[in-house]
């Protein structure tokens, strides 16, 4: 059984090749700027920039669009809330205490658009073009300065990477246990929610026991291979900023500066 985690879309575009740290920081910056702009023109330009990035990454547009699905409800809800709660000079119509305002319509729309942009931009930079392992590496490196303050950045990254490593193994095991219990008459597809939840006990307990055993054996194996924490460890693949990262960062900063200028005018 093969199992893919997240929705990484393999490719060799500039976006794929950037250092994960660049992409994590860029996503944070994009997020901040997105909350600072509110006027239509900067939003449209942001949209065009996003479209440009998608085209460049080679990720099919529908995949990126699919990523906003979980927030559609939230966006529509926020939009509706705005329509009915924003005070205005005149209203399209009123019903009881709800007044539909044109002003609210536009405010809500911009809010929804920003939410979509936010999700699409982070999905594109992070999950779609960065493997989970690169992400873990990038986060570790970014958090490393905090290690001096006692923050376990190496341990965190090691935990993430081991979790990633064991997802397919445990998925396989779940499948096996479910089949074994089904043979013994367990039934996971029929009955009410409670019956089904109870049925899952016969899967979860063996799975839990086995995960603990695996953890114990893995710890022994790691110790036998001289693992003693992050200190003094070298890495096979060291993250290195390249010219690409510098170029991409400069380009991004320029675009973001332009957006802010358009939003707030030249100071």
């Amino acid at each position: 059984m093969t199992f893919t985690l997240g929705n990484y879309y393999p490719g060799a575009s500039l976006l794929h090749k950037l250092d994960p740290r660049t992409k994590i920081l860029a996503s944070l910056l994009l997020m901040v700027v997105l909350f600072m702009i509110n006027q239509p023109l900067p939003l449209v330009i942001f949209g065009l920039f996003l479209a440009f990035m998608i085209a460049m990454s080679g990720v099919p547009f529908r995949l990126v669009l699919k990523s906003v699905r979980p927030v559609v409800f939230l966006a529509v809800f926020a939009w509706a809330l705005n329509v009915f709660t924003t005070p205005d000079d005149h209203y399209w119509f009123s019903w009881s205490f709800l007044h539909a305002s044109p002003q609210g319509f536009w405010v809500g729309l911009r809010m929804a658009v920003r939410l979509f942009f936010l999700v699409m931009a982070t999905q594109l930079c992070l999950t779609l073009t960065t493997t989970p392992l690169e992400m873990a590496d990038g986060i570790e490196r970014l958090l490393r300065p905090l290690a001096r303050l006692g923050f376990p950045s190496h341990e965190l990254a090691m935990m993430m990477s081991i979790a990633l490593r064991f997802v397919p193994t445990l998925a396989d095991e779940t499948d096996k246990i479910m089949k074994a219990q089904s043979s013994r008459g367990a039934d996971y597809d029929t009955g009410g929610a409670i019956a089904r939840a109870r049925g899952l006990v016969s899967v979860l307990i063996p799975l839990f026991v086995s995960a603990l055993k695996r953890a114990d054996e893995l710890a022994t194996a790691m110790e036998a291979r001289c693992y003693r924490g992050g200190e003094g460890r070298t890495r096979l693949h060291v993250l290195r900023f390249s010219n690409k990262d510098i170029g991409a960062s400069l380009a991004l900063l320029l675009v973001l500066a332009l957006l802010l200028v358009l939003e707030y005018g030249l100071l």
Partner: protein
Amino acid sequence: MPDTFIDIQDVCFAYPDSSDTPAPASQSEQSFYDAESANAVDHVSLKIERGEHLAVLGRNGSGKSTLARLINGLEIPTAGSIWVDGKSTVSEADIWDIRRSCGMIFQNPDNQIVATTIEEDVAFGPENLGIPQPQLGVAVSQALAYVGLSDYARSAPSELSGGQKQKLAIAGIIAMQPACLIMDEATSMLDPLSRQAIIKLVRKLQQERGLTIINITHDMNEAVQADRVAVMQQGRLLMEGSPAQVFHQVETLQHLGLDVPVHTAISFYLGKHFKLSFPSGSLATPEAAEEQLRQSFRFLERPKDDGTAKTETLADQPRPQIKVEDVSYVYQAGLPNAKRALEHIDFTVKPGEFFGIMGHSGSGKSTLIQHLNGLLRLQSGSVNILDYDLRQVKDIRQLRRHIQLLFQYPEHQLFAETVWDDIAFGPRRMGFSETEIAENVKAAVQVVGVEESWLQRSPFELSGGEKRRVALAGILAMKPEILVLDEPAAGLDPAGREEILNYMRILSEAGTTVVLVSHNMDDLARLCDRILVLDHGRRLLLGTPAEIFSRQDLIEQGKLTLPASKAFLRRFQSACPQLNTDCFSVDAAVSELARFVQLKPAAREEVRQQQAQKDRRGGTTL
């Protein structure tokens, strides 16, 4: 001039409190009732030479794995000391050096892979040692090339087979430039082909790089390839010597629950039949054993025995219980990564038959048996079980009452609070009445020798072999007419293996239809009435063991391996053409040979002397 690499000096070790300490990772055999032998390792002294290949044999729980952990410094002796290359494992300063030079491979291939890609996993050890680039990258790619996994460098571990995963583990050790490789039952979860590949790789390391090899194993086919064999029991070192010397102690080893090579056993018992003992070490290889037998025995002319009546009675039986017709199955059908698992499989199983399904990993065995109780939906063809047509069955649970499937490592499916509840789970789900359940549980428990006192305990307190018996009882408690078992003896030590296979025989004799899936030719040959051989999802052969193993062409192509007993008997076919070589157990082979041989005069003289010696010794001790 002996160059001692590892010096174990009168070492004792006890787990602090065996009730809440995890047992050795490789095999949690520290069960509650043998915890009374407080020392897991008990006054063991052993010197291991540099570049030596040592095999350590012993039953589960005999302290083998603990010994390995002591050498590697994962545990510290409670008494005595261990010196590795002149360094003590007690020394904090030297421990990392010892762990680097003594790499360890564990039993479960999955539980020793740390990283998400193959190359990163190989790099894990050297990374821990702080080896900088570019040496690190070179070490990793050289190690991968050595074990033949270079093509997988960037793959995920889940894409590898069990055998490849163990090769990966070995690569991870090689990259640390070790002086010694310790294998803790590293091949016990692999199929025979992968086992051979791993042992070949390890021997290459010994020869080319002078590595010291310590192989802790149940597989005596591996042990005979070692330079020296040590046998452990209850924490003590019981025997030690060359494989030829150790395996000559046939009865002692079997009494300990261990195996000896089949040719040694056959020759030994043939000798015993004629009261003749052979000189120590004379039965080590099949060639030597043949030579020894030819020296002592004269071969006679006898009429051929035509006594294989069992198959004929079965042929008269009426309608089959399992009828599989033209079944094909494709995983991920319609997708680019579609994989054909089965192609046009046909076979029938008769009531009461002991039916074997044999094939290498990936031959489609498990896909096939999952069709038998409806775990996989039929894609094409038809399956009939008893009166059920699987294309039309509405309530699959009705069918599963009659045909039960025991998966590999079934102990992993235990979950209930008590052993009793776990065994009763199946019958309960199938809607048996409470009195019926109580009766069935009791009956099932008796068949597999689960003691009454266990019933109210948690299944998680039991050892691996005991859990397996409980899992088997959980299946038997449903009183199935057909029992399908996938490698029921995998990972057990020889005595545990024999025990489980014996239950199969008992059930079969009691009238249950048994379908046994295995890649062990010897087991299938001696147990089964008929065997279906699968090869890459196709039916290669179907027939009695005698028919199957007469296919010289397939044996030469490497698709079949001759059972060891038949291979040995064939050595005597030139001397007596009437010898029936279709004997698949040691007992059968011995009695067949015994019909055709007679002691030579010199050997008869030898017997007389041995007898006299024994009498004299008996006289003095009395």
